[in-house]
C-alpha cells in the first residue's frame, strides 16, 4: 500500500517534537531520547494489534529496524531515528498495543535511546518540515 494521504485524514503534529520521514517522533531530554510513531502513522496503520520490541542494551544504527508494528491489515518496520543504545522499552505495549492508536504521543511511546553521537538530533525534522513532507505525499 502506498503512503497516500487521504483528504479526510486529520492528524496531530505537535510543535515541540522532532520527526523522521519514516513517521516516527523523537523527544529529547536529559541526554535521552524517546521514540514513538506519529498520529499520521497510527492512522495509516489502523487497529494496532502487535508490537515487537527490542531488548534494553541493544544497539542500533541510524535507520536500522529496531522492531515491528502490526495492525489488523499491515505490518511495518520500526526504524531507529538516530544511532543509539536502547535504555528502556515500553513493555505495556506488549499487552496493550492499541495504546499507540489511543495516545501515540503519550503512553504509546515505544523505546528510549541513549544517542551514540552528540549531534544525533541534527538530522531530524521539525514539525513544519514533517508536516510539509506528509502533505506532499498526497500530491
Amino acid at each position, binding site marked *: *500500500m502506498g503512503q497516500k494521504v*487521504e*483528504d*479526510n*485524514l486529520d492528524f496531530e503534529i505537535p510543535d515541540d517534537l522532532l520527526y523522521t520521514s519514516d513517521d516516527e517522533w523523537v523527544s529529547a531530554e536529559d541526554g535521552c531520547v524517546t521514540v514513538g510513531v506519529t498520529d499520521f502513522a497510527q492512522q495509516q496503520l*489502523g*487497529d494496532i*494489534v*502487535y508490537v*515487537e520490541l527490542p531488548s534494553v542494551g541493544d544497539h542500533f544504527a541510524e535507520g536500522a529496524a529496531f522492531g*515491528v508494528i*502490526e*495492525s*489488523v*491489515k499491515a*505490518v511495518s518496520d520500526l526504524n531507529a531515528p538516530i544511532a543509539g543504545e536502547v535504555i528502556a522499552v515500553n513493555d505495556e505495549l*506488549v499487552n496493550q498495543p492499541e495504546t499507540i492508536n489511543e495516545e501515540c504521543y503519550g503512553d504509546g511511546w515505544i523505546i528510549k535511546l541513549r544517542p551514540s553521537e552528540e549531534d544525533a538530533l541534527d538530522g531530524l525534522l521539525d514539525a513544519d518540515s514533517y508536516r510539509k513532507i506528509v502533505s506532499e505525499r498526497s500530491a
Partner: protein
Amino acid sequence: MSALKRTPLYELHRRLGARMIEFGGFELPLQYSSIREEHAAVREAAGLFDVSHMGQFEFEGLAAIAAADPLASRSVAALEPGRALYALLCNEKGGVVDDILCYRVAEAHAFWCVNASNIEKDWSWLRAHVPSSVSGIRDASAERGLLALQGPASASILERLSSPAVRALRRFRCARMDVAGCSALVSRTGYTGVDGFELYARHGDLARMFEALLADGSSFGLRPAGLGARDTLRLEAALPLYGHELDEDTSPLAAGLERFLDLGAHRFIGADAIASAREAGVAQRLVGFVLEERGVARAGCAVLDAGKPVGKVTSGAPSPTLGKSIGLAYVPTEMARPGGMIQVAVRDRALRARVVETPFV
C-alpha cells in the same frame, strides 16, 4: 499498471471517510472507521459492503445456460430457478480458474458472480469453451454492481426497504425485489460467515440503495464496512479467497472443497483430473491454525517441520472475535489433523501454532 477502476459509490465512500486501497484492479474502501469496529458490527448487528468490483456474467436462454454448464463444477442447468450455488471453474489439470456463485434467476436466465481480479481471464475462458454460435452470453460487469448487507440484523433492515418476503428467503435462494424503490436481485448469500443478503442492481441505482440502507439501518446498528472487515470475517469463517487459498495449480481437493464438486453425472472441465487426484490422494491439505504465541502469521509465511519448510500460510490475521492470530495454510496431509502442532516462520522466529477445526468462529 493501468489506472484503477472505481465503483459508482466511490465519491460516497470518500464522503463517509473511507480509506481506500487497491483490490482486484479497483479502488475500494479498506475501512471507514476501524476494521475491528466494522467486524464487530457485522457479527453483532449489520454491515453494508460495496462489492461492485465483482464481475457478473449473464446467460440468457436455455442454450446459453447449457453451453456454459461444463465449465462449472456443479450443474447450473440442473439447478431450480430461484436458487444459487457456489462452484469452481476448473482447468483440465484440475486446478482452479476461479471460484464463483452461480444463480438460476429464472428458467431461461442464469448468471455468474466472479472475482474482480479474474473477470478478463474468466471471460476468455468462457469464450474459449463455448461455441461462438451460442448467443445470450454477456459480461454485465460494467453495468451492474453488488451490495452485501451482512449480519444478524440484515433481515430486519432489508424488510423495511423491500418486503417481508426477505425473511422467507432461505440460504442460497434468490428473488427479484424492489429495494428502496430500485429493482434488485436479492440473494441470501454472503462472504462473511454470518447471515445476510447480497443485492445485485444496476450501477445507477446503487447509491440510492446504499444511502437508504445506511439511513434506515443505523437504528439497528448498521454501519458501512470495508474490505478489511470483509477479509477478517471471511477468514474467521475459513472461506477461501482466490489468489490465496485457490489458484490454477491448486486442487479443490487440497482446499477441502470436495463438496462443491459434482463428480457424478455432471461432466465438467477438470473432473477427470480431479477424480484421478482423488484416487491418488492429495499430498497437501488446507488447514486452519491458531497461533499459540504472540505475533501475526501472514500470507506467504512458511510452515516448518523440524526447522524445514514443508508448507505455506495462505491467509493470516489477528481474529477480532477470538483475540488470537489465526490463519489458513497448506501443510502435508499427515500434519493436517486438528489438534496437531505446527510451526510458522514469522520473520526470524518460529511460532507455535495449533491446527484447528474450521470455521474458526
